[in-house]
């Protein structure tokens, strides 16, 4: 699978086309890439999601879901949600926390514990969680079911 064009997505985002950027992310999920590529893509997805206003979320999801082949895109989005919603319980789903290097604050005396979430991941997680709720509203439990069934993890 080819590397999704992160630059293109960023460009769309800068141009104010958040929906296009989100579609771009979801049309090219990294299934077979290396861990590094997957993490990079995850960061892009979180960035895009963070840029979308809360009031825009449901209408945008509905538009994507209703479009041709859109339900699959929403299912892909659900896979990212799975990491936020089910990282504690569901085995196999990745958590975005473990690969982030703690940022030195200069005040820490014992250094950060490995794996402890820092502020930016916390925000990423909460954005994924709030999106999770909206995706379930639009795509139903079936979407969670497909996310859990599918072997292709993001």
């Amino acid at each position, binding site marked *: 699978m080819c590397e999704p064009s992160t630059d293109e997505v960023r460009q769309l985002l800068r141009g104010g086309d958040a929906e296009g950027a989100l579609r771009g992310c979801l049309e090219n999920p990294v299934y077979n890439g290396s861990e590094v590529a997957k993490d990079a893509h995850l960061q892009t997805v979180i960035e895009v999601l963070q840029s979308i206003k809360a009031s825009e979320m449901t209408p945008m999801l509905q538009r994507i879901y209703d479009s041709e082949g859109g339900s*699959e895109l929403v299912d892909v989005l659900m896979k990212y949600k799975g990491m936020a919603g089910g990282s504690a319980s569901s085995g196999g789903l990745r958590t975005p926390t473990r690969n982030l290097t703690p940022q030195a604050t200069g005040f820490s005396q014992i250094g950060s514990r490995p794996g402890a979430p820092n502020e930016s991941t916390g925000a990423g997680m909460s954005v994924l969680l709030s999106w999770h709720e909206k995706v379930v509203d639009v795509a139903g439990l079936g979407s969670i079911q497909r996310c859990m069934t599918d072997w292709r993890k993001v």
Partner: protein
Amino acid sequence: MASPEVHHLFHRPIADHSFSADRQTLAVAKDTTVELYGKVGNAFKLKDELKGHDKTVTSVDIAPESGRIVTCSQDRNALVWEPSPTGYKPTLVLLRIARAATFVRWSPSETKFAVGSGDRVIAICYFEEENDWWVSKHLKKPIRSTITTVNWHPNSVLLAAGSTDAHARVFSSFIKGIDARPEPSVWGERLPFNTVCGEYLNNSAGWVHSVAFSPSGNALAFAAHDSSITIVYPSGPEQPPQAVVSVSTQLLPFMSMIWNGEDEIIAAGYDCEAFRFQGGLSGWQLTGTLEAKGRPGLGDAREESALNMFKQMDLKGKVKDDTQLKTVHQNTITTLRVYEGRNGSVSKFSSESHP
């Protein structure tokens, strides 16, 4: 749709059920036995018990013409129960499998039956006159995992099977001396035993729970654990299918489904109620549920007073009591069967579930 008849038989999960052709007898798999219920007035009364398996019975099927009952079980055996004046007489079938038998169905011709198993084979069983014995031939290739379900084509030669390797397959189970040569169809012309006429995978590779040929046998539908149903229209041997239509639903997965004519499918499963799909070559859609919501007796009888609201919030932390299902079945529906119908259209069907 008329309101359903509900027969509460016992407080145990029902693995499978089957009605006799005259609909006077109902066979139900319960633990290690099969219970036969006879219709008395409007109720079903227990009249016989078939005891012969020593592990959970997984599937049961009554042949409509001969009245023979075939059962299979986790004890790796299948039994054919022959009706006689003194009751049912069991005959053991040589399955030659090393894992549980999971699913059994008579072919429409009633000369064969197919047993799915956890041994990655489907045993096609038929009666050998010279040895006075039921023997089996194995469909092996290219099954990679447990067979969860099978369904016969109307010609009694083609067999569809669903498996936990996420594939729905169509095999030929042609047995010389038992079967007449089948007419050429969209599935193929020459069909020696174990010809794989089709192999289909769904998008997210979920377990296949149910497979069903359309009444004409020219289309195949399968339901999988990713809450989808897929309908395949083959175009001919060695050719890509004309159309593969997949419907990803917002619901929980379906465990069983039946066709009603060529353009309607009724499916039910973990949502505890039956849903209707309609469509054709160009596309399929979920058109709704078969149950009328808000039947009397199930609606909230409690008055919606402020006192009641705060009481609920105090006791349960929420205003509405959402622990009750509004469906007839209160647990997963495991099997749907045609109860009454003709020429491939269904006017009544039966379903069963865990208690």
